[in-house]
């Protein structure tokens, strides 16, 4: 028995199905009379089927020859069945491989999965015995009859011929042939509501196997874009930096080290999330530790950023972070409000005599001022980078040594790991019922916005003149 290689039905060009070639090579090996899977004559109902193989033999062969363990071999053999290389003799509609004594055979591809052939097949079954078609098959048959009406005589004639040819065969051959044909069509015309492996999704727009027309612009683009070479460093240094990152975060990865007090998904208790909300009063020790890993970690955790702001307030240098945040808001904000935001930032932070003036070098200031002639969202990029590096290299390290940080480290709680009891089904059910829903993020967001507005109003630049005027008035 051989497998014809036009099984991929014209999808040969599609790389995503090129894996089938490897699968085919394996199946050919499996069919080898000496080293392949041993087939025997097995009794099915009353007929003897030749070359039948059992599920467990298939799995055993794959485990041995493809160097896989049992579960993987089972999954792989299920793929073989799903793609139609092997078909089940019993329970033909379920395309899974059962690793027991269930019988299978190698498929022989004699058909093309075209509608004409399918119509002939259905017509043939109809001739044999009326009403033998399943509901979905009947529907398909009616559909095909409708739009292949012009060919219908040809189809019926072919069906009759095949039917008579089939009758002339011996009983065993006939059963085998029918099984094969039926299995083939289960794979290529799957019943509705089943998952078919032949489904590969959408066609991709551009066929990547078609050689890209290498015209002048293809090369020109390479020449133009190849010129920036980037920042290469020695592999050892880079590999070490990847490893260093992993080791630093190892204890924080819930897949490597259990999170404390307990993983909410395992235990149906969300105390872990309760203890780590963005605005929690007292953070956990792990969280505080994480702030010390990098400035980015500190800023991306809202609680960490709040703590950093407390420190900055004590140092009277809150304007750097405020500027950075405002520039971020400009960068990621809507296009409509961009120019007025840029104006506002300039007036508040950069203009000479500004209420929250930040200290940047002359060159950066010059670039920024020039850019502001035509404001765009990245106009403060240079200044923002400068300020960020300043905070990262200086302020951040002072923060880590400051009493503010040391205090929060002391205050931070270390929840004890909780033992939990997964006893009987009833307990599990109760846990499931006790799952608490959380506050909708929409509400959380609205609250945050309100608080921000309040804070902005409170932190607005103090107008000295007004203040003096009000004092004079009171006098």
């Amino acid at each position, binding site marked *: 028995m051989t497998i014809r290689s036009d099984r991929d039905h014209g999808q040969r060009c599609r*790389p*995503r199905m090129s*894996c089938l070639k*490897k699968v085919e090579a394996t199946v050919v090996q499996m069919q080898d009379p000496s080293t392949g899977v041993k087939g025997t004559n097995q009794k099915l109902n009353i007929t003897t089927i030749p070359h039948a193989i059992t599920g467990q033999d298939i799995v055993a062969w794959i485990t041995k020859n493809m160097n*896989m363990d049992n*579960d*993987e071999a089972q*999954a*792989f053999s299920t793929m073989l069945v799903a793609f139609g290389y092997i078909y089940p003799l019993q329970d033909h509609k379920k395309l899974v491989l059962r690793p027991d004594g269930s019988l299978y055979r190698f498929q022989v591809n004699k058909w093309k999965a075209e509608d004409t052939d399918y119509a002939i097949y259905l017509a043939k079954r109809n001739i044999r015995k009326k009403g033998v078609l399943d509901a979905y098959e009947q529907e398909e048959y009616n559909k095909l009859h409708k739009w292949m009406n012009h060919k219908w005589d040809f189809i019926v004639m072919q069906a009759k011929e095949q039917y008579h040819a089939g009758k002339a065969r011996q009983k065993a051959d006939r059963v085998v042939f029918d099984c094969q044909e039926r299995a083939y069509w289960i794979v290529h015309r799957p019943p509705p509501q089943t998952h078919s492996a032949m489904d590969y999704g*959408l066609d*991709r*727009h*551009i066929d*990547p196997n078609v050689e890209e027309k290498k015209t*002048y612009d293809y*090369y*020109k683009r*390479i020449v*133009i874009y*190849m010129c*920036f*070479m*980037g920042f290469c460093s*020695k592999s050892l240094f*880079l*590999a070490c930096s*990847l490893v*260093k*990152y992993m*080791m630093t*975060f*190892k204890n924080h*990865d*819930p*897949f*490597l080290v259990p999170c404390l007090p307990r*993983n*909410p998904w395992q235990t149906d208790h*969300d105390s*872990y999330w309760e203890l780590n909300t963005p605005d929690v009063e007292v953070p956990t020790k792990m969280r505080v530790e994480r702030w010390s890993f990098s*400035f*980015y970690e500190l800023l991306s955790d809202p609680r960490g950023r709040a703590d950093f702001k407390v420190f900055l307030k004590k140092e009277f240098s809150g304007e750097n972070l405020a500027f950075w945040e405002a520039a971020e808001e400009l*960068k*990621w904000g*809507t296009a*409509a409000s961009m120019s007025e935001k840029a104006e506002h930032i300039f007036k508040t932070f950069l203009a000479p005599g500004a209420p929250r003036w930040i200290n940047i070098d002359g060159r950066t200031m010059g670039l920024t001022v020039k850019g502001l002639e035509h404001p*765009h969202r*990245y106009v403060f990029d*240079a200044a923002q980078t400068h300020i*960020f590096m300043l905070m*990262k290299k200086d302020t951040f390290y002072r923060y880590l040594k400051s009493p503010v940080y040391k205090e929060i480290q002391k205050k931070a709680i270390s929840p004890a790991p909780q*033992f939990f009891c*997964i006893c009987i089904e009833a307990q599990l059910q109760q846990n499931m019922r006790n*799952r*608490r829903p*959380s506050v909708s*993020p*929409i509400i*959380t*967001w609205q609250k945050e916005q309100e608080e921000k507005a309040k804070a902005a109003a409170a932190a607005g630049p103090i107008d000295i003149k007004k203040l003096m005027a009000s004092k004079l008035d009171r006098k």
Partner: protein
Amino acid sequence: MCDQTFLAITFGPCDNCSQNKPLMNIYLKNEPINYCSLCVELMACQGLAKGETIHTLKAESETLKTKLEEERAKLHDVELHQVAEKIEALGQFVMKTRRTLKGHGNKVLCVDWCRDKRRIVSSSQDGKVIVWDAYTTNKEHAVTMPCTWVMACAYAPSGCAVACGGLDNKCSVYPLSLDKNENLAAKKKSVAMHTNYLSSCSFTNSDMQILTSSGDGTCALWDVESGQLLQSFHGHSADVLSLNLAPSETGNTFVSGGCDKKANVWDMRSGQNVQSFETHESDINSVKYYPSGDAFATGSDDATCRLYDLRADREVAIYSKESIIFGASSVDFSLSGRLLFAGYNDYTINVWDVLKGTRVAILFGHENRVSTVRVSPDGTAFCSGSWDNTFDLRNILYGFALYWHQGLYIGVLHHPVMSVP
């Protein structure tokens, strides 16, 4: 932590069209020029200059390529797994499915987590987009898109909106509402317009901007409020299937992978293709940054996943096995970056040790191909969506003590243990 590399951007009048735009700094015949991205594209298409033929251009590009390879080879002295030899190996992992979310009538194509670590938005082939509270498995919102094959969906950082798109060539943003009966489709905003299907979308650091990638070979950055195109990214020669934003403090770059086997790194401000990697043998289905932002992983139809280091400018690891034949459709890292979860078209999920390059676990359970794998924002669980209409949430099953005490078994949270009864 290692310094993030800052790409300086210049903004100003383009040397060619004199408009004020973000400029790409490139060199032409060793002369630095400052052109905007549109003018660069035009220049590439202008036709052969005097004295140039296709052959001279081809020769020039070949010499540049070999030069680049030589430079890279000079700095390559050690492989990642060699450095990782001294690190202790991971124990055997046993992962358990914690939740199965059933509700889609058709293939689940895309899944995204909300920043609150428990909500998920998922989209499917029949046009349905559902927002779940995965912890309680309740469905919170549902939208029916007017098109099928919704391949892209994303949760907004604020948690107040979702974006989705697919065969309609558009990306639409739906603001979520607290009122259960409200028809979300009424407030829908059409943001992106492509000329072919939308394969992937992602919000940037705020709700106001969306980055999309499309089957027409381009990526684009859009302003949500006005629907205006802020920047477009040209460079792929086939469908772009996936994109991912860099988790760095600057947040200015993203990586995209496409059917032309290339993974490109882009600067969002200028539209410039900063780096390009072409070592895969087939379509790249999925790209994901390493948590530090210094590297990224890709999953491809050639049944391998690869790790590329941005500073080394080369591929540093390849995750493959003889026995894995079917393509990887989706990849994601665990929080520390030690584990790489990859969903494959043979219905399985393989978990790789990123440093050592070995497989630590293989997960079964889906009845059709795994289309998407996403780790939750705090790393406590990961979610896998499949074409069998369900998606499962799994996380680690820790050392369940191997004794039974009067029919109860007590779980103790230690490090992962070898096996479980």
